[in-house]
């Protein structure tokens, strides 16, 4: 046995998915509420939060998930380099067209920037991460979903897991924000997280199969968009978005 010739051990993709889903990973996510604070400020009754979470998991959550899936596909296909850059801009444009609120796009790019720090620290040399990092300027980072796509490509995550991770992360972000905004037994929103994930299951296969930017779901949530715009103008808030 020659230990120096053994290939370096790699974590299982499932372990990487767990790391990414863990709120303790320092990527800046704790300052975000996945649109929950804007919704409550906009008048959504707290009692409607579970239904609202299911709504997200089956609409805007799938836009994010599809974007990440397609970004990962783009980054794992063909030769690396300029082609990837052009393809990534098409993915980003498709995502932006499906995310009409500027406040939400800005928040997602900010999250993307924090996530990119994580990605560069952990998978920096991987060409998929390098390709996305090369698109980041100080004023405009790729959105979080695109950065997630790069991590998925670098770590070998399955498309179905990328979809589930995106839906779970969104629901869990809202659930933990809710505990800061409404008095509640912390186990109650944990159930709602599972319900939201369950509601998304029917869509997982379809979203995981997306290959081109045109395939990305275009299901919107107009009230959420409006609430996000109003929230961005307040100066009484706990969360960035």
């Amino acid at each position: 046995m020659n230990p120096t010739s053994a290939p370096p051990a790699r974590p299982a993709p499932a372990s990487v998915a767990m790391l990414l889903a863990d709120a303790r990973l320092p990527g800046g996510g704790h300052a975000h509420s996945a649109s929950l604070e804007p919704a409550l400020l906009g008048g959504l009754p707290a009692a409607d939060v579970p239904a609202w979470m299911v709504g997200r998991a089956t609409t805007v959550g799938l836009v994010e998930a599809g974007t990440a899936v397609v970004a990962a596909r783009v980054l794992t296909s063909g030769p690396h380099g300029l082609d990837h850059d052009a393809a990534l801009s098409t993915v980003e444009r498709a995502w932006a067209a499906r995310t009409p609120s500027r406040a939400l796009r800005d928040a997602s790019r900010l999250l993307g920037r924090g996530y990119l720090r994580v990605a560069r620290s952990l998978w920096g040399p991987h060409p998929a991460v390098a390709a996305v990092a090369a698109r980041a300027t100080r004023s405009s980072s790729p959105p979080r979903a695109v950065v997630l796509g790069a991590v998925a490509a670098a770590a070998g995550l399955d498309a179905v897991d990328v979809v589930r991770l995106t839906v779970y992360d969104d629901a869990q972000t809202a659930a933990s924000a809710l505990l800061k905004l409404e008095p509640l037994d912390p186990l109650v929103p944990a159930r709602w997280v599972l319900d939201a994930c369950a509601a998304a299951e029917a869509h997982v296969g379809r979203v995981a199969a997306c290959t081109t930017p045109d395939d990305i779901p275009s299901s919107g949530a107009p009230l959420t968009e409006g609430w996000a715009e109003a929230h961005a103008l307040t100066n009484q808030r706990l969360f960035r978005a």
Partner: protein
Amino acid sequence: MPENPFPETAPTTPARPLRLGVAGPVGVGKSSLIATVCRALAAELEIGVITNDIYTDEDARFLRSAGVLEPERIRAVETGACPHTAIRDDVTANLLAAEDLAADFAPLDVVIIESGGDNLTATFSPALVDAQIFVLDVAGGGDVARKGGPGIGRADLLVVNKTDLAPHVGVDVEQMVADASAAREGRAVIALSRTDEDSVAALRGWLLDVLASYRSGAHVAQDPGPMAPHFHADEDGVGVLHSHADGDHAHAHDHDDAVAR
């Protein structure tokens, strides 16, 4: 691609401004101290400020209205109701804001980051700041300094603020400073009042010294640590006072938090 992929995390990139944290409980005068520093140094240093309010951008607005800096140089970040997390466990939002300020107003000398007033245990991660000030005030009582805590014990500078109020709250400032100095094993302590010119000059001098030391590469960011130094007995029953901030994690000891890790 820039040469250094992590300019915001490099410990001492000469091109990067000094990042100075200001921590301490709500109301001890952190925002006022920052205004004082800006006023005392605006003529010679290029300064930017980041605030971490808990629920509003009150601190940022206070500082903008103080007229000590261009309003654009004062930015607020949201902390998701976790001011503690934003300066220690996940400093992303603050790092990005510091990076933006440094780029928007290059060349900056100092970026000052005010923590959202939390409790006595909140201190900055060395991943975010190069040096930090922990602020107490005399109105909090003369014994606070003795009670200790990571910030009180090991911040680069402890400020005992609002000394002008001491007669009104029955606190002996000299005693409080002596207690603090003892708890800090000689690290810097300044008794400050914004109305006491000499004390402001001392604060100004301290900051300029740290900046010079940072620029020369001699300054090393210290982590006051999230925990107070604590006491546990070794096998001979002889007490050992140690702090987890001193790079001594490697030594074997068997108290609760080590087991829990």
